[in-house]
């Protein structure tokens, strides 16, 4: 590459870098600062930072990873290694509502499979996918801790127990 191009590229990168630094909003930074004040060093607040940013933006983009990394003085790879470890940090865009369907043993015995089939049919998506209208993302989840009321699922922060196929229409309607 020609030297002037190199410089240009360097400038471009610097510029991009600057932009990334400013990517966190005032609200996000304030919330992250509060978390930093509770831990012995900045890095220890990274999971909280991911939660804060995800709450604002619904998912964690590469740009969000960079922004958090800059803010906490970590490498982006380090932030990403944490982000990708935890299943409730979303590294891909999700729909407006996230359905977490329990696929663990008690729900398996009590027929979560039928609920999954019905959801697939109604929403026309499988686990890991988002509906075309961006309204719902369907994800499997480990035991939700209501095995005496299996099958169970959560939509956003709402828990549904003893779920029956015929109720799904009515439940989903609440989120449309």
């Amino acid at each position, binding site marked *: 590459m020609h030297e002037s191009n190199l410089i240009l590229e360097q400038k471009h990168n610097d510029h991009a870098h600057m932009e990334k630094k400013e990517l966190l909003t005032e609200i996000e930074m304030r919330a992250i600062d509060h978390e930093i004040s*509770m*831990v*012995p060093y900045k*890095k*220890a*607040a*990274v*999971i*909280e930072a*991911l*939660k804060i940013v995800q709450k604002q933006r619904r998912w964690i983009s590469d740009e969000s990873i960079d922004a958090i990394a800059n803010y906490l003085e970590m490498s982006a790879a380090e932030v990403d*290694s*944490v982000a990708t*470890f*935890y*299943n*409730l*940090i979303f590294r891909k865009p999700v729909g407006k509502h996230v359905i*977490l369907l329990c*696929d*663990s*043993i*008690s729900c*398996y*015995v*009590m027929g979560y499979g039928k609920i999954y089939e019905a959801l697939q049919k109604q929403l026309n998506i499988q686990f890991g996918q988002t509906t075309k209208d961006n309204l719902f993302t369907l994800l499997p*989840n*480990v*035991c*939700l*801790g*209501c*095995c*005496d*009321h*299996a099958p169970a699922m*959560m939509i956003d*922060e709402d*828990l549904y127990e003893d779920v029956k196929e015929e109720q799904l229409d009515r439940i989903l309607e609440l989120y449309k």
Partner: protein
Amino acid sequence: MEQPLTKNIITGNTLSLKDYEQAGGYAALRKVLKDNSPQQVQQIVKDSGLKGRGGAGFSTGIKWSFVPMDENARHPKYLICNADEMEPGTFKDRLLLEGNPHQLLEGMILAAYAIKADISYVFLRWAYRKAAEIMEKSISDAYAAGYVGKNVLGSGWNLEMYLHTGVGRYICGEETALLNALEGKRATPRAKPPFPQVSGLYGKPTIVNNVETLSCLPHIINNGADWFRSLSVSEDSGTKLYGVSGKVKRPGVWELPLGTTMREIIEEYAGGMTNGYSLKGVLPGGASTDFLTEQHLDIKMDYTSVAAAGSRLGTGTIVVMDDKTCPVGFVHNLQHFFAQESCGWCTPCREGLPWVERILSGLEKGNGSPEDMELLQMHTQYLGPGNTYCALAPGAMEPLQSALKYFREDFVRHIEEYKCPYEG
């Protein structure tokens, strides 16, 4: 029958600070601050015979006794409540968190006092949204009442308390993985030694105790070690929250004397099997415990008796497998869970569990071969105790090895008939 942990819990309701105080709450804390040294509290709990209710069943008093207590001990020391209940089939801590939060907080404060801790955390799984709301409010109420914070009840002792909600992953319930998660890292387990009591959160002395374990403490302090021992109907002490899920008439959770038989729990409390189903096997204490069968129904559900029968009490929440559920499918579901939840840190677990899952998936679809039986058997050895960093893979092998023993015929039929005999 005494039910100290749940007697004040009304299903669907939360005991407020006022209700809890009226029922005698925080008397244990006042008592120890006045009368007992931390070492004395440790001794009372040791004498009570309380064992950890999170699954491993280790003596709580002995666990605490490894925390350095001399004046050279490093501070801050930490007390952590493990409220990351995620063992499939387990739903007992949720009841205590939602129903009587201050009983848990008082237990935490007592445990923190016993190890002279400075900071305490409730590590709560994300999915327990209602519990999160309740704990948030309860901690703030406890601060306002002077039970936590600077100069607890005028004793000169300071204890801070925080709620931390996780972002998923079963492995966070493993105590050293939990510490890494709290430090903002990937939740991989740590090598032991050093044990958390010496080098835990941020390298400082730390105790991690389960919700149910901690909830026992106010009652032990109020009524004494002998009383706690007298609650059980076995050599282990206290009551236990037992649960039953699966095809039974009344799935649920009940506080019963430790050592109540499995038959009594399933037949009397859970109302027996749903009509049209019979019992084929049970996981006595969550997904990572060995199967037991009908011949074991009369054993006492305590640490010693369940172990003698070849399984573990675990969390004490029974998952019933009925005669119309395919054992291979059942075990496949479990192994899918464990393979997915392996943190990937050590090779046997990371590579072995997906292999086991693939074999079981093949078997269930009718693509199995006799060799598969040997491969599965081999894995129960290779992924067994001593070959991995933590107990996840050995725990995963418990239901597999016992399924191969008790339900071998079902596995063989899948191979010989080239299909799942439970389908169609």
